[in-house]
């Protein structure tokens, strides 16, 4: 990503902030002038100084991903000022739960077949080749453990066997004025 802190054009951040885009501008590599909305969203939600602080705490090779994920979160929050991208997390969480149930049901069906719930009362005539049942598929290892171990560049999240409890998932009309501080330690 070419630096925009040249004589030619300031980066989107410095343009937005109406300041000179100096060489070495921390925003320049990640907020090109052709994408003004990206910085506008990030500035609106997080603020320029918070983003500067966040980026300064990271190694240079991590900053591009950090900026892109901040931009994604900021855009999600601009579009949905209440739920932001937590809405997407909630949706995906429900989808995973639904699919896990479907997987459990499919596993149960498979085990029934593999353990020969086929009626054995029928006589087996001579000459009929015996049909060897397949080994039933073992229930997959908890995804929480598998996923957390993939890739060394990837953050290892807390266990998903107990995913983040979203404040409204069980009690939609719930304790809004409680500040949510008690139910889930947030």
């Amino acid at each position: 990503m070419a630096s925009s802190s040249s004589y030619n054009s300031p980066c989107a951040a410095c343009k937005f902030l109406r300041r000179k885009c100096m060489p070495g501008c921390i925003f320049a590599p990640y907020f090109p002038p052709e994408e003004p909305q990206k910085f506008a969203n990030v500035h609106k939600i997080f603020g320029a100084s918070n983003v500067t602080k966040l980026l300064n705490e990271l190694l240079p090779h991590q900053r591009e991903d950090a900026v892109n994920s901040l931009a994604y979160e900021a855009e999600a929050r601009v579009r949905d000022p209440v739920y932001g991208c937590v809405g997407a997390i909630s949706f995906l969480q429900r989808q995973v739960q639904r699919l896990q149930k479907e997987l459990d049901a499919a596993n149960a069906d498979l085990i029934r077949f593999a353990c020969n719930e086929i009626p054995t009362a029928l006589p087996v005539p001579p000459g009929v080749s015996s049909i060897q049942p397949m080994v039933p598929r073992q229930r997959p290892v908890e995804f929480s453990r598998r996923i957390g171990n993939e890739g060394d560049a990837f953050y290892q999240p807390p266990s998903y066997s107990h995913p983040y409890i979203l404040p409204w998932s069980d009690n939609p009309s719930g304790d809004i004025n409680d500040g949510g501080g008690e139910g889930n330690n947030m």
Partner: protein
Amino acid sequence: MSNSSRCAACKSLRRKCPQDCVLAPYFPSNNPQRFSWVHKIFGASNITKMLQQLPVELRGEAADCMAMEAYLRVENPVYGSVGIIYQYQQQIIEVQNEIIKINGEIAVYNALLQHQQLQQHQDSFFSTDNDFNL
């Protein structure tokens, strides 16, 4: 809220907590950590502005979501909540693939079962026929 029981936000910002403090309902003093996450990632004035722009009945959920996003970003400064989204998406793909494989195996079992039943039926039919020829 009086000075003697300031909300977590006002305590952190070392200011008086007025009766109509926007943040007080959502950042109680018994959970200072929650505000510190939000303060670090969004900033006090941003979160105040964002909550003020919402109807009162939606502010609680918004504050909870922002607290969660802030917490996730503090835990994972590079990817934040987006890391969780990616993890769930990968998990969904894996589970879907697993279901497809299992359904395939079930289909094979079904086919074998039907084949077995058909053969048994044919064999018993032919052996009955032989009886008549005795």
